[in-house]
């Protein structure tokens, strides 16, 4: 899957985007986030406070039980501040 990072989530993780293959146990947003936190201290740090991290799957906001698979484009970012 393709994962994109924006704003301070990007800074903390140290990447703007990456293409990875998630393990089999990752099948929805909740399991995706649980797996991401194990990928290193930079990931754990960026995702430490779930209240201020938003997730989009294929460019739509997604809730915890939204399905995720390896063909998806997933994005992690803070609450938006445009306008």
């Amino acid at each position: 899957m393709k994962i994109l990072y924006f704003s301070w989530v990007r800074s903390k993780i140290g990447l703007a985007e990456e293409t990875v293959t998630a393990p089999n146990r990752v099948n929805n947003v909740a399991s995706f986030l649980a797996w991401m936190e194990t990928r290193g201290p930079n990931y754990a740090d960026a995702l430490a406070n779930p209240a201020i991290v938003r997730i989009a799957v294929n460019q739509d906001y997604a809730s915890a039980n939204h399905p995720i698979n390896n063909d998806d484009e997933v994005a992690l970012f803070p609450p938006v501040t445009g306008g």
Partner: protein
Amino acid sequence: MAIYVQSEDFDLSAELKQLTANTASTIGAVVSFVGLVRDIIGETSLTALELEHYPGMTERQLAAIEAEAHQRWSPIKTLIIHRYGRLHPGDQIVLTIVASTHRATAFDACRFLIDRLKTDAPFWKQEETTQGTHWVASREEDNQASARWKNKTSTNLE
């Protein structure tokens, strides 16, 4: 019904004229919102603003907001422009325009567009100030302003 995500500035008069031209219509009211880069945030002077966004998702979310407005308040004409990149105090950031037969609809729909844009469109502001550079935090008022449209069945704000 149009959306532009661009780094260039925009001209409000020209956009308004284009939106209302050649309609042979009943348009009598046009309400527009323009967001500007502020000079002073609290006690701090702003020197520049860097606007990051998520290309693709931005257009998708703005189109969804615009479509919902057209569902709620038909017939209307709408335009959304949002800039990205490096901006300076006084610069225009965002424009939402709604043209309608009467003004109540135009006011409500224009406010809906910007209220929902603020919470749904994937933009992030980084402020460069005399005190340093930081990412702007989201405002709780914006969440409330956006959420109130979810429970509203009437177009009347009262």
